């Protein structure tokens, strides 16, 4: 029993509690503790990834009760990857939040931040559906706090909507779990997988309902059309570092879909007869289109970034909806890219907003008081990434997805959607960028308005942003080895027997 598997959940929780306990009033101390904790999380998750890379599936039986009766944490290639991605994103975002002084614009930023990390990591690691619900709630309620961090009329009202919408989602989650338990009598995913496979056909209806409702719950998280409506206002009004961190939250939905609908209700499960994919694919295509069209239609940078987040989720879900190993490799690669790219864009947009006090985040020409050139370069690069233009990972990811779509019978639709929307995105970003940066280039620099909070260092914020973009370059450079790992990951996902065996301690021969 390897205790390290628990660390990504326990460590942030303890850090958060310690911050509340001992550092409630000193931001500096909070920052130190928070950074140290996150760094430790990074180290641990790297080590966990190396552990998982061996192909072994590690199971941690919390409370020493065997599955399916107790709750288990499961570390496989996928969960290790997601945890690592979370940790790396977290440290960059944290640095940005500190550098930009966002964390000091309200109370309890760091505590909530750490609790959010706990929820996210828990959601990635747990092998129990109800426990998944609990972690969803943990990360959600932390996200509520972070979303309204700093206050403000619009932000608070958007916050109400965000909370209300997600409460509906949580309610739906419980309905789904009730239905599933009522027929299968279990909550453990591996156990559920077995039982679903043996489910007598004449009991299928309720199970199917449960499975589909669950899909919708995850779809809300993943901002899948038509359940994405919470996203634009939320993301565009959320504090930038939080929005950047939310880049991983939409991925949780994607992860959960990938996990549950390969392991439990797999693509060739007789009682589901491919319903999941059939529901998912068209919705994903629409999501992609709405997102990219939104980029072109946006008049505010915040919404531009929000819609590009939707668009990239659409692309990702298209790849997932194919439910083939090849497509899943592409999906996972794109997921890594999309997380980094979305986060980077939100941070850049924040820089553009902070340094153009005149514009208030609108897409209009307005002079920069600082970092005009650098911000322009950063925006250019991150737009390229999100529009999926070369040479960054976005392009590679799209190529992989399109390449994997060959065997799908919707291949022409998928290709057309991806290519046309890429063009729309390119045009949209070009319009936004050229009118923000080029038109305003001539205007004279203005006075630097002193920001309400002291204790901020621009350079740290910039460094953090550049780091995330740099990470994308690395992801592009190392596409080969990464694809190798992802290939093995997809292998694990589409051969669930190993997972089930490990969790239920079946001696598989």
């Amino acid at each position, binding site marked *: 029993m390897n205790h390290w598997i628990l660390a990504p959940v326990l460590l942030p929780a303890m850090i958060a509690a310690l911050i509340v306990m001992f550092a409630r009033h000193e931001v500096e101390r909070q920052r130190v503790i928070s950074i140290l904790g996150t760094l430790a999380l990074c180290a641990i998750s790297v080590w966990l990834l190396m552990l998982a890379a061996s192909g072994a599936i590690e199971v941690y039986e919390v409370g020493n009760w065997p599955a399916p009766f107790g709750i288990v944490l499961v570390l496989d290639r996928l969960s290790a990857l997601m945890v690592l991605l979370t940790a790396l994103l977290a440290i960059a975002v944290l640095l940005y939040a500190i550098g930009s002084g966002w964390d000091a614009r309200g109370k309890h930023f760091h505590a909530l931040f750490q609790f959010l990390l706990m929820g996210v990591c828990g959601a990635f690691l747990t092998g129990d559906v109800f426990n998944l619900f609990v972690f969803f709630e943990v990360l959600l309620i932390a996200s509520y706090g972070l979303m309204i961090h700093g*206050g403000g*009329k*619009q932000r*608070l*009202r958007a916050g109400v909507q965000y*909370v*209300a919408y997600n409460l509906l989602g949580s309610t739906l989650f*419980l*309905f789904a779990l*009730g239905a599933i338990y009522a027929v299968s009598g279990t909550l453990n995913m591996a156990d559920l997988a077995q039982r679903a496979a043996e489910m007598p056909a004449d009991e299928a209806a309720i199970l199917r309902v449960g499975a589909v409702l669950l899909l919708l719950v995850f779809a809300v998280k993943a901002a899948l059309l038509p359940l994405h409506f919470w996203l634009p206002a939320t993301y565009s009004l959320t504090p930038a570092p939080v929005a950047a961190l939310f880049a991983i939250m939409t991925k949780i939905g994607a992860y959960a879909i990938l996990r549950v609908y390969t392991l439990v209700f797999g693509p060739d499960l007789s009682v589901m007869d491919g319903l999941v994919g059939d529901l998912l694919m068209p919705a994903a295509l629409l999501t992609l289109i709405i997102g990219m069209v939104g980029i072109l239609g946006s008049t505010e940078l915040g919404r531009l970034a929000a819609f590009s987040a939707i668009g990239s989720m659409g692309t990702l879900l298209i790849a997932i909806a194919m439910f083939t190993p090849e497509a899943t490799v592409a999906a996972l690669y794109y997921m890594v890219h999309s997380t980094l790219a979305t986060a980077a864009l939100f941070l850049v947009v924040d820089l553009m907003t902070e340094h153009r006090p005149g514009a208030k985040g609108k897409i209009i020409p307005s002079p920069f008081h600082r970092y005009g050139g650098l911000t322009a370069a950063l925006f250019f690069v991150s737009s390229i990434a999100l529009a999926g233009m070369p040479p960054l990972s976005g392009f590679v990811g799209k190529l992989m997805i399109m390449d994997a779509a060959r065997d799908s019978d919707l291949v022409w639709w998928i290709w057309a959607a991806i290519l046309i929307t890429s063009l729309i995105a390119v045009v949209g970003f070009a319009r936004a960028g050229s009118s923000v940066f080029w038109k305003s280039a001539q205007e004279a620099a203005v006075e630097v308005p002193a920001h309400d909070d002291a204790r901020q260092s621009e350079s740290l914020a910039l460094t953090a942003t550049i780091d995330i973009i740099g990470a994308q370059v690395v992801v592009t450079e190392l596409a080969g080895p990464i694809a190798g790992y992802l290939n093995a990951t997809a292998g694990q996902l589409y051969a669930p027997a190993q997972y089930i065996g490990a969790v239920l301690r079946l001696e598989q021969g």
Partner: protein
Amino acid sequence: MELLVASAIGVLTAAGIYLVLRQRTFPVIIGISLLTYGVNVFLFASGRLAVNLPPVLTKTAEGYSDPLPQALVLTAIVISFGMSAVIVMLALVAYLSADTDRIDMGAEKGEEN
């Protein structure tokens, strides 16, 4: 009995949905609470119904109701309590700072904090 419980859940859900579709934060919150009642009972019912069989081990009991859903519902109640506390508070401060308790924010869209 089953019919009563089923219909009760149905009624709660229907009312909840209707109220969630209102325009102001307060009825929406009430609606969500009704939905929460509904779903809690739903989850509880997933263990089937039993009368006078509390899952407390005794020598004499001739059976027990399913304890697991009860534990789940308990967790769910607590969590939804925390959630509703947050949304109530949020709705309150939103009203205090925006001077309206409309939940739709179409009109002022785009204006900054």
